[in-house]
């Protein structure tokens, strides 16, 4: 073990800002969660990066050089993330690093990248705490938390007279700001909160909260959920024989076949979910990405997780920026990314605000209609279907 440490140490000679050689592959260092709390999404993130690397390598790589990914596993632990990125930067001498999965891990990762003068482009770390660090090297290509449900809130306020809304959310650094973003907008437009319940990550029994929502008789229910609680709430509401007219969840309904299986095909109709991406979108390189992903990993287009697209987008922005500055210098990259340029990605346009958020992000809103997830909002972007204004009763839709 000590020998291993010595070997690791001898493999390096102090630190540098990763210039590597000027020919040979461009190495990208990534830490992903292949086990632990974030492992499902971590795997999708890894696949997203791999799809991007494969795609880009078939199209000339970056600056004419092949892309090589150096991926480490962090077990969903910030401690490991700290060590991983230090190793990638100072031992493996990667040219660039991109972000891990989740706000929780992106925070320490970006701090370390900053220490060594590296840029951190990421797609899946959109909680406010990432941007509040005051770092200048973080760039989130996806819509950050508080904007995710704004499209929904705007639609509701424009199309409904003010009425009671029931809210519930996990106390998660991403989901809660997401829900609160919608809630502040709606409250400011006259929609009172009939219920506002926050629950911790380890909750396994949602029946009391669902009962409270049902008892409030609010016809609009907005939930800041991850998939497990997303499914559980729907099941509990069905058990309570309570069918609100509008139901939106932060995630769960975006899981494709898993969602249908969890709640039953006849119960999906009308449920809405935000997403930064969908397989059928016509944004930059999306069709190619979907095709390549299916070829590499199988499955169906509807089962592709949005994490894949988020990782792929991070890669796209890196490609475009590096090709433009014609250099692998991280400092030049940082200045360029901050220069108000608009980039293209499978999730739509990307333009960075000073704190690193994507100001041009378009969070979409999707709705289950007749057994498929359809893009419905914002009207006028892409080719959305009309919104189903009232959710059918449980068991009626399919």
């Amino acid at each position, binding site marked *: 073990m000590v020998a291993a440490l010595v070997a690791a140490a001898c493999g390096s000679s102090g630190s540098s800002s990763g210039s590597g050689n000027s020919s040979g592959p461009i190495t990208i260092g990534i830490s992903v969660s292949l*086990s*632990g*709390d974030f*492992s*499902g999404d971590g*795997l999708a993130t890894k696949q997203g990066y791999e799809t991007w690397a494969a795609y880009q390598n078939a199209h000339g790589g970056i600056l004419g050089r092949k892309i090589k990914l150096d991926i480490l596993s962090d077990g969903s632990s910030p401690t490991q993330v700290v060590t991983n990125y230090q190793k990638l930067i100072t031992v493996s001498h990667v040219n660039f690093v991109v972000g891990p999965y989740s706000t929780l891990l992106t925070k320490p990762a970006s701090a370390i990248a900053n220490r060594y003068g590296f840029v951190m482009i990421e797609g899946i770390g959109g909680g406010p705490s990432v941007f509040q660090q005051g770092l200048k090297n973080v760039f989130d290509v996806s819509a950050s938390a508080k904007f995710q449900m704004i499209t929904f809130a705007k639609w509701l306020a424009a199309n409904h007279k003010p009425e009671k809304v029931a809210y519930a959310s996990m*106390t998660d650094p991403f989901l809660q700001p997401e829900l609160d973003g919608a809630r502040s907008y709606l409250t400011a437009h006259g929609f009172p909160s009939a219920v506002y*319940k*926050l*629950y*911790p990550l*380890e*909750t*396994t*029994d949602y*029946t*009391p*909260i669902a*009962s*409270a929502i049902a*008892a409030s008789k609010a016809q609009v229910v907005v939930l800041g959920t991850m*998939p*497990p609680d997303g*499914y*559980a709430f729907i*099941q509990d509401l*069905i*058990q*309570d*024989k309570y069918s609100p007219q509008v139901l939106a969840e932060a995630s769960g309904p975006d899981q494709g076949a898993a969602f249908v*299986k*969890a*709640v*039953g095909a006849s*119960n999906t109709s009308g449920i809405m979910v935000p997403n930064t991406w969908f397989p059928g979108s016509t944004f930059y390189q999306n069709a190619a990405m979907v095709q390549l992903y299916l070829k590499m990993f199988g499955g169906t287009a509807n089962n592709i997780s949005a994490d894949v697209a988020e990782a792929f987008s991070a890669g796209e922005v890196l490609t475009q920026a590096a090709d433009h500055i014609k250099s692998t210098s991280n400092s030049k990259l940082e200045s360029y990314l901050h220069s108000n340029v608009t980039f293209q990605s499978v999730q739509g346009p990307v333009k960075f605000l000073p704190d690193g958020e994507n100001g041009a992000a378009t969070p979409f809103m999707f709705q289950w209609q007749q057994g498929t997830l359809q893009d419905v909002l914002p009207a006028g972007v892409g080719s959305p279907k009309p919104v189903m204004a009232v959710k059918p009763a449980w068991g009626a839709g399919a």
Partner: protein
Amino acid sequence: MLVLQAIIDGVLVGGFYALMAGGLTLVFGVMEIVNFAQGILVVLGAYLSYALYSHLSIDPFLGLVITVPAMFLIGIAVYWSMIKPIKQERVIMSLLVMFAVGTVIEGVLDLIFTSNLVEIHTSYVNTSVSVGRLIFPDVYLFAFAMSILLLGGTYYLLYRTRFGRSLRATMQNPTAARLVGINTDWVSAFTLGIGVALAAAGGMVFGQTNSFDAASSYDLISRLLAIVILGGFGSLGGALIASILMLVIQDVVAVVWSPTWGQTTFYIVLVLVLLLRPQGLLGRKAVRAQ
């Protein structure tokens, strides 16, 4: 009304938690070992039921015919291979050994099933019975009935059979039991087997009412341990009362105040009870020295 519904929810869910906790308390009562792997064993039971259901379409409740004996045998095997060889400091060593065993099981489950969350979706997961304005979800009704049956059966085993006498004798005084000719090793092995078998049954319900993966065990084990301490080590009745109490407190607090305080309240209640009654609600009076 909401509170009444919360109480009903708590009682129903508490019923099946009692299954999982019952196994834990029994094992501790007889062998003085803390089965730290109980959480992951519940998850294992859930995965077994899940595999039977999704590949062979065997209804989870019926599938118990397979999973329960299988897990019973696993419990016996674990006893002989892991617990029996411990010679010193059984309490602490067994805790660590079971923790290690649990880690290995978790790793294997993670390898086989990956970390995708799964859930057993039977047709009766969404249906419910309504009485007036109160809702009784079907799956919990079945589970509650099953728990009472299984716990009742175990109780019968403990108090009406010869094996049960041997078990209780071992619980009270292992040395004396051995002197009377009771094979305490087999009694212990069987007890662990029963504990694990109960975990299998609880796991089946757990798998239907929660999305789970291998990492779900951590939260579970801490709750089960809390229930067992509250109920009193070695007492099945205590486990039942404590489970129901825990879930009712949690649900009522969630409804009346906030879900984030539900679990905290329970733990605080636990500490308070233990200050007044260190042996738990129905536990035996503890011998002070160790």
